[in-house]
């Protein structure tokens, strides 16, 4: 389905976007299987509509919303972002979405809200990957309030001007372009404002390999592989990897969020 009323964003990169095929057939979405081709194969019948979103925690306007009603007041923006996976590959993706900051402002969090925590749908009937205990379900993620309010942080509902494909996290997913892709939690059913740093799925699974922040950082290697370079999907068999940029190339906009933080320890 085509989305209407989309405006272009000044935050878009001018780099060439990956093909729709690459973006929608090469996915990490363990709820639909651990292989890269599994989500495309297993998410076709997933019911992303109707969808209920719960807003909870330290905020004035909490409650359960129909997703369509929830996003109606906002203007959709197309944002072409680099996406860097923790597995050292990357893509350029034309998302369509709403800045998370706009949603948060309307939700009116109280002063107790220090972090935002997100939760994916837990439905093994529809999500065959959840029938195996490869991760602890439901998938959960989190951001500091400052990260969540940053103008680059996006709640995506579309891709290439169309409604988001199921395998890319329909109907609602988080996009934080300066962080590794696993922070981009998919098929979100709950947004909660909390006081303490929330538990996050990959960190729970392997704390020495995946931190809470998960900022793209070429100087901090994953314990098992280097993060200095990345393979750009779609560059072909004979292209060499390209250098990974600090904060995935968004350092100018986001480095100030982490002033005084030891990024080697807070990886």
């Amino acid at each position, binding site marked *: 389905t085509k989305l209407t009323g989309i405006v272009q964003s000044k935050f878009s990169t001018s780099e060439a976007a990956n093909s729709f*095929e690459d973006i929608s057939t090469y996915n990490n979405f*363990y709820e639909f299987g651990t292989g*890269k*081709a599994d989500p495309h194969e297993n998410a076709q019948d997933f019911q992303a509509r109707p969808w209920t979103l719960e807003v909870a925690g330290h905020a004035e306007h909490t409650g359960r919303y129909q997703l369509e009603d929830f996003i109606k007041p906002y203007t959709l923006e197309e944002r072409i972002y680099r996406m860097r996976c923790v*597995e050292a590959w990357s893509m350029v993706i034309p998302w369509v979405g709403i800045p998370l900051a706009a949603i948060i402002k309307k939700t009116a969090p109280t002063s107790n809200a220090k972090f935002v925590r997100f939760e994916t749908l837990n439905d093994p009937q529809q999500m065959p990957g959840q029938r195996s205990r490869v991760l602890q379900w439901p998938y959960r993620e989190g951001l500091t309030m400052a990260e969540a309010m940053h103008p680059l942080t996006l709640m995506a509902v579309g891709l290439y001007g169309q409604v988001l494909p199921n395998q890319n996290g329909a109907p609602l997913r988080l996009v934080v372009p300066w962080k590794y892709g696993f922070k981009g939690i998919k098929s979100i059913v709950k947004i909660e404002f909390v006081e303490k740093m929330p538990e996050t799925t990959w960190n729970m699974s392997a704390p020495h390999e995946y931190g809470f922040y998960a900022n793209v950082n070429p100087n901090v290697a994953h314990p098992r*592989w*280097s993060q200095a370079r990345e393979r750009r999907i779609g560059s072909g068999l004979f292209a060499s*990897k390209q250098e990974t940029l600090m904060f995935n190339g968004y350092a100018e906009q986001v480095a100030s969020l982490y002033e005084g933080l030891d990024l080697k320890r807070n990886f």
Partner: protein
Amino acid sequence: MNSLKQIRFVWKPVVFALCLLPALKAVGDTFGWTGDLGANPVEALQDHFGNWALRFLMIALAVTPLRQLSGRNWLSRFRRPLGLFAFFYALMHFLVWLILDQSLLWQAIKEDIVERPFITLGFVAVLILLAMALTSTAGMRRRLGRRWQQLHYGVYLAAILGVWHYWWQVKKDISEPLIYALILSALLGYRLFRRWHRTHRHG
């Protein structure tokens, strides 16, 4: 045609052709004739060759148990070619990594081999298989005498390192490396049991 000739002129070429199929499939997929390599062709080729290296190692290691259990001694004639195919696929896996993945950037390659334990394991396994492949001729076997056998026991270590390398490489879902680990345990367990059985019978 006697059976020796039959093995040499019929069965060996047949097995050889079968063993080449995964390589042909890789070539066909690369050029889009038999399928395609998907969004990340380098990773797809690396995984393909790595998987077949492990499969051929398991197949080569299964020859001796099968021969002993079935009493079909002619099976041993397939041990060397199967082992060489395991080396061939491991070498392809290594070369795809070296050339296509790392683009022959020696500094990064050295760093990976030294600092990333799972790559160290795979690299050592390839070196062992290389040493075995280079000494696999009858002439080298004669020349090396008892040391030849010692060197070629290295296949056990190479297989363990290969499976361990795969296990360590996957992010979370260990189901496939687990299958290799179970098969390898059975193949090595059989040998240990046989050895224990023999020493106890004679002891």
